[in-house]
Each structure stands twice: as structure tokens, then as C-alpha cells.
């Protein structure tokens, strides 16, 4: 009986030692394999696998020592389920981090649209991503958001064509068209190419015009809109820019 117990302890000790070395080896190998996805990410994945191996090893040791495996398993499973439910968002964010690291749908400084949010990616963290909208607001987006909504990466080309609507009080169409072209010429140095007057028409006692601006930094739009309004004001024309 005592010999049998000593034998079990020896086997359990061997399993523990084996588990320790295997977990260490797995951590080093995985860290190396995943390093191309970022050092921090590789460290997290390898740590997770390491603890999982240790958990399996401990479960095996408990089984070898003939302790009540079922009771221990139920407790561990309950704790795991409780943690999973209570930390659902954190787990989702970690899953999203995995997705972002492997799929790489965008990089820092890319201009993206995801759900209702559109802007420049400032930084990509393990839990959230910082996006600066064109209003200059910093939006912190939990990474799980990227699993729920499709990501549109608009950084494939340098310039983005933005349409603005200009509304004038009633006036002569030819004069307004000429004023629009003059104002567009004034802001041309801030653009990445030629601005364009898309259309101009009379509507409900007002004149509406649509212009297209090729811009690199979309956050500049508000400033450009102010400059456009100022340009018209200098010509004695009132305008609403949207």
C-alpha cells in the first residue's frame, strides 16, 4: 500500500517536472513563432498556452494521486465559466486582438470606417484602438467592435475625394460659378490635386452647389470649410458649407 503511494508520488512528481519543461519549451517556441505579429501579442499567446499546459499537468497529477478528480474538475470548470461570463468583453477584446494581429485589416495612420466611426488610426492597443475623427475627436474603440462591424480601410489611395455642399442665397448662377472657381483656386495649395465644381443649381429660392475636394488629411475639412466661407465673405457672398 505504502509502496503504491510512493510510486504514485514519484510518477506525479515526474509529470510535474515534465509539465514544467514542456510548458517552458512551448512558451519559448510560441513566442518565436508569433513574434511576427508583435512582441506583446506573442508573449500573451505563449503565456496563455503555458498556463494551459500547466493546468493539464496539475489535472494529471491530481488524477495520479487519486484525489477526487471529478469534484476538482467541476470547481475548476465552474470558475472558468464564471470568469468567461463575467469577463466576456475582455475575452472578446482578446479574441479581437488575435484577429487584428493575424488579419491586419489596418495599420496605424490608416483612414478607416468601422460602423459609425470614421477616422485616422492613432494607435492599436491590446484592448482598444484609438481613432481620431475628422472633427479631431479621439475615439477609443474596444477591439471587439471590429469583430461586429466590417472594416473599410480607405487608405489604399493617398487622396480621398470629399464632397461639400455650398448653399447660397439666391443669386446669378454664372457669377456664383465664377466665385466658386476663384475660391477653389485659393484653397488648391491645400489639396492633393484639382478641386472640382460638380454641380450648381437653383432650389427653393436658393442656389446649391456641390464641390469635390481631393484631400490627404480629412481632419483638415473643417478648416477648409472655414477658409471657403471666408473666401466667399471676402467677395461679399454669404454661404453655408456642409
Amino acid at each position, binding site marked *: 500500500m505504502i509502496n503504491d503511494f510512493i510510486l504514485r508520488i514519484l510518477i506525479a512528481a515526474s509529470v510535474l517536472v515534465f509539465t514544467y519543461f514542456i510548458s517552458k519549451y512551448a512558451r519559448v517556441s510560441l513566442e518565436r513563432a508569433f513574434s511576427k505579429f508583435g512582441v506583446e501579442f506573442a508573449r500573451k499567446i505563449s503565456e496563455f498556452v503555458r498556463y494551459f499546459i500547466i493546468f493539464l499537468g496539475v489535472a494529471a497529477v491530481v488524477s495520479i494521486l487519486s484525489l477526487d478528480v471529478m469534484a476538482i474538475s467541476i470547481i475548476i470548470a465552474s470558475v472558468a465559466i464564471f470568469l468567461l461570463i463575467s469577463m466576456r468583453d475582455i475575452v472578446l477584446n482578446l479574441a479581437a486582438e488575435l484577429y487584428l494581429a493575424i488579419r491586419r485589416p489596418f495599420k*496605424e495612420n490608416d483612414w478607416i470606417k468601422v460602423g459609425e466611426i470614421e477616422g*485616422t488610426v*492613432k*494607435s492599436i492597443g491590446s484592448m482598444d484602438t484609438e481613432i481620431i475623427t475628422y472633427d479631431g475627436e479621439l475615439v477609443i474603440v474596444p477591439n471587439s467592435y471590429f469583430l461586429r462591424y466590417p472594416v473599410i480601410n480607405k487608405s489604399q489611395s493617398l487622396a480621398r475625394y470629399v464632397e461639400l455642399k455650398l448653399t447660397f442665397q439666391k443669386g446669378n448662377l454664372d457669377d456664383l460659378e465664377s466665385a466658386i472657381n476663384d475660391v477653389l483656386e485659393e484653397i488648391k495649395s*491645400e489639396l492633393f490635386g484639382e478641386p472640382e465644381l460638380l454641380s450648381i443649381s437653383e432650389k427653393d429660392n436658393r442656389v446649391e452647389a456641390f464641390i469635390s475636394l481631393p484631400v*490627404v*488629411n480629412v481632419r483638415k475639412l473643417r478648416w477648409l470649410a472655414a477658409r471657403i466661407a471666408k473666401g466667399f465673405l471676402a467677395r461679399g457672398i454669404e454661404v453655408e458649407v456642409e
Partner: protein
Amino acid sequence: MRVLLIGGGHSAYFAANAIKDIDPTGKLIIIEFTSEKAEVLSKTFPFAEVLHQEIDEVESYIKTNASILDALIAATESDSLNLRYCKVGRENAIPLIIAILNNPLNYEIFAKEGIRYIINPYSFIPVELSEILGSATNIIYKLPAGGVMLASIKIESEEHMHKLRKELDKSNDISMIFVSRSGEIKNSLSDLDLGGRLYLLGSEKKIKNILKMVGE
């Protein structure tokens, strides 16, 4: 386009001229640290707005103007300063951040900091030497955006030529020209001859695959 160019040395000189050619109507702002140099720059580049600022004032200029700047080019004569300004630009979400290296060995440091466009002015030294000295394979150019690569391969043996023909017959998305030993430029695979050079232009992945297949 509104471009901020930091520095007044050789790199900045070439950058300023290039920007003028690329975007003649654009707005170029040059920041230089010494007043004498700033004065010379404003005469050399009358199309640009030249500002004389202290080293530590530049960061605050970048932060204040980040929402209207389209590009930041760090071209000072110190890589640590360039990195510092690029980081501030990146943190303030300027869409285009470009660093011009002084020491090519610092490339990795910039890349690790997430600077996407890093210009290494020395990168053509090994390329040109390889062409002049007739190296077997030479990656001539790798575009910073788009993953396009231009490679030149010296045809050294019949077996090599056969392998290349076989691989290129299968790839219809690679452009090529062949320069024979006598210097004639041809564009047909059947014209390949020993001692000549084959120039391949295509995606980095495809070109690397071909080089691997033919044992380069």
C-alpha cells in the same frame, strides 16, 4: 498639399526640390534650427515658408498644426531628432510621415516605432555596385508602397536559362525585358542568351517566388 519638412541639410534640400516638382502649387513649410541657415533656405526656396525654430519648439508646432498637415518629412541631420518628430507626428495622426535616414543602420529602430515610410538614401550603393560588378542576382528596387519589385538576373548557364523560361512561361503577371551581352534590349523569352541580364518587374511575392524556383 501642406507638407512640413524639418531640417535644412542635404536631405532636406533634395526633398524640398522633389516636393516642388511633385506638387508645384502645394504649401511647403520648412523648419530649420539655425537662423543663418533659415535665411539661406528662404532665398533658395522662395516658394516655401521657412521658419526658424528651436529644436524643442518643433514638437509643439507639429501638435498645433497636426489637423491641417498632410505630410511630415523629418530630414534633420540627426536620426534621433527625426525619430522624435516622426513619433510626435504619428501620435497626432498626421496621415503621411516620412523619415529620411542619416544612418541606414537605424532603419529597424524607425520601423519598430511604426514609421511606415523610411527613406534610406544609401540604399542604391549596393544596388549600383551589384550591377556594375555583375552580381548574379540583384534586387534593384522595392517600392515603399504597393509591394512592387524590380529585379535583375544574370543568365549564367543553359540550365539556369531553361529554369527561368519555364517559370516565366507560367507567370503572366510579370513584366520583363532582356538585355543581351551585347547590350541589345529585347522583350521575348526566346531571346534569352548566356551572359545577358533579365529584368523582372512584378509583385514582390511573385518575383521572390521566381528567384526561389530558379535557385537564387
